[in-house]
């Protein structure tokens, strides 16, 4: 449990805030980041759906190569990609193992490999498309394609309030720790300590529910005085807010190149 405790000590609220900022706004200068959100949506809609219905291995492989290129171009943190790959491979792994109990054999590998390939293309497409957009761009883009105003409000509010909520949660959690008493014996696999900490993590939400309720009331009052109507943004406000979104030459170029590549893949196989 010492490790976990040390970890808990180390995860400072400041640290999390800093990491969040860097995750959100770290990739602003890549080529993909300069594209219009709608371009990225169209692009994602194709590469995120089409692979489900494509069963030619060479085409999938070609798409995978393309995804790897765009992923590298958008400078996504290797950690996220590693986690993604681990998840996909382990899932395929235990499906394979389980299938042996039901009479599977080495022939099972091939379809599983194809499935994994599809999933990789889809995941990489979403990672590239959505990590390239900073939160404002994503929320403007969603607003533009007709998502409810609540979604874009929610994203903005998240970036505004999360640090405060983390601080408050941290304080309450500390109050529990400092006034309570950690179990003296850790138990096998530290199960006693794990239960103790998880219990605190859950109980800390009781106070937080009440204080968040107080916050929500002021916030909604303020929203009302700031003219944020709940029926949604009217068309005029949407237009003014999104006036800066423009499809430009590079957007069309990017889509055209992608399309050309896909056509090429199909025609070669």
């Amino acid at each position: 449990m010492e490790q976990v405790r040390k970890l808990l000590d180390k995860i400072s609220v400041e640290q999390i805030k800093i990491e969040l900022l860097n995750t959100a706004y770290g990739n602003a200068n890549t080529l993909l980041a300069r594209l219009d959100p709608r371009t990225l949506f169209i692009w994602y809609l194709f590469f995120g759906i089409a692979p489900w219905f494509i069963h030619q291995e060479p085409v999938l492989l070609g798409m995978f190569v393309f995804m790897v290129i765009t992923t590298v171009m958008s400078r996504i943190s290797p950690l996220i990609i590693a986690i993604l790959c681990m998840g996909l491979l382990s899932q395929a792994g235990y499906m394979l193992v389980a299938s042996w109990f039901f009479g599977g054999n080495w022939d099972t590998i091939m379809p599983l490999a194809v499935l994994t390939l599809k999933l990789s293309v889809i995941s990489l497409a979403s990672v590239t498309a959505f990590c390239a957009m900073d939160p404002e761009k994503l929320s403007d883009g969603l607003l533009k394609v007709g998502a409810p105003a609540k979604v874009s409000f929610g994203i903005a509010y998240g970036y505004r309030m999360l640090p405060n909520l983390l601080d408050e949660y941290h304080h309450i959690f500390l109050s529990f720790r400092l006034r309570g008493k950690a179990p003296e014996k850790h138990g096998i696999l530290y199960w006693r300590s794990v239960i103790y900490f998880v219990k605190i993590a859950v109980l800390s939400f009781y106070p937080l529910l009440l204080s968040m309720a107080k916050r929500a009331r002021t916030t909604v009052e303020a929203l009302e005085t700031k003219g944020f109507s709940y029926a949604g943004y009217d068309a005029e406000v949407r237009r003014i807010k999104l006036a800066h979104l423009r499809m430009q030459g590079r957007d069309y170029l990017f889509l055209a190149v992608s399309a050309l590549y896909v056509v090429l893949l199909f025609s070669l196989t």
Partner: protein
Amino acid sequence: MSLMKQRYVLTQSQKMMVFILSMSLYGLSNMITELIPEFRFGPIELSVEYFAFIPLTLCILFHPLYAAVGASLGEVIFGEIMLGQFGGLGELEKFLAFSLAMFIAGSLVRDPKNRRQVGIAAITGVAIHQMISSMVDIGKVWVGIEELEAVPGLAESVVVIEGVSFLNDVLFSGILFALLPTMYLVPRLYGKIEPLLGMKPRDNKMRYSIGQILGPRVIVLSIVAACGAFIAEFMAESDMALIEWDADFVDTYGDWFIWVSIGAAALVALVTILVMVSRRRNAGGKGVSHG
């Protein structure tokens, strides 16, 4: 629909408060569960999947639709977008499944002070959610692998793996992080949190006998009714605007460039559809011959 009429009515701003409350807290909890380490043995994992008790509690105490949608959106925003893991369409499916499950759970409870009702609603909510996710996962493999039935052992193993993880999630996360905390929180918060939002607690003047509340037919009917209610209310309340791909295409680029790119996109779409159709036809034909 009759279920909704029995609920008390909230003003728009009160619904907004419930929405913000649910979104922020469930979003925060999602970040925290990401930090808690997990223990994993194949499909069986002892991990803290989610703190489902937060949306459950709020759905039971307040307006179930707004609490449910708020929580799902909170998960997408805090747990995915802010951590740089937004997954596009996959999120939409999670969003709908989770909102629906929480909404049904909240609708099942008529008297927040009745612990048995609260408990049943909590575990039902988690079960519905896990059921939907399992079905979606199985569906993905089915769609993604050509001629699934032809591959020996795979179909069975997928079903078994999903079944095991369903049971694991319902029994582990469901009991520890939905059932117990919800039963602890709801009676404590009832009558206490509502005035903070400037509203009256849900009244529970309606009395039902235990049999009436717990009969399986009632539960099934309620779930069906709730699904309908959910969809209807969701459509009515959401302010989905018509998609506006508006005119800056033509405004700014009135030249040939647009037509080339649109033509290329149309071509890609056409090729894809053709491939899809031919694949389907082949798969269908083989399926019949197998049978």
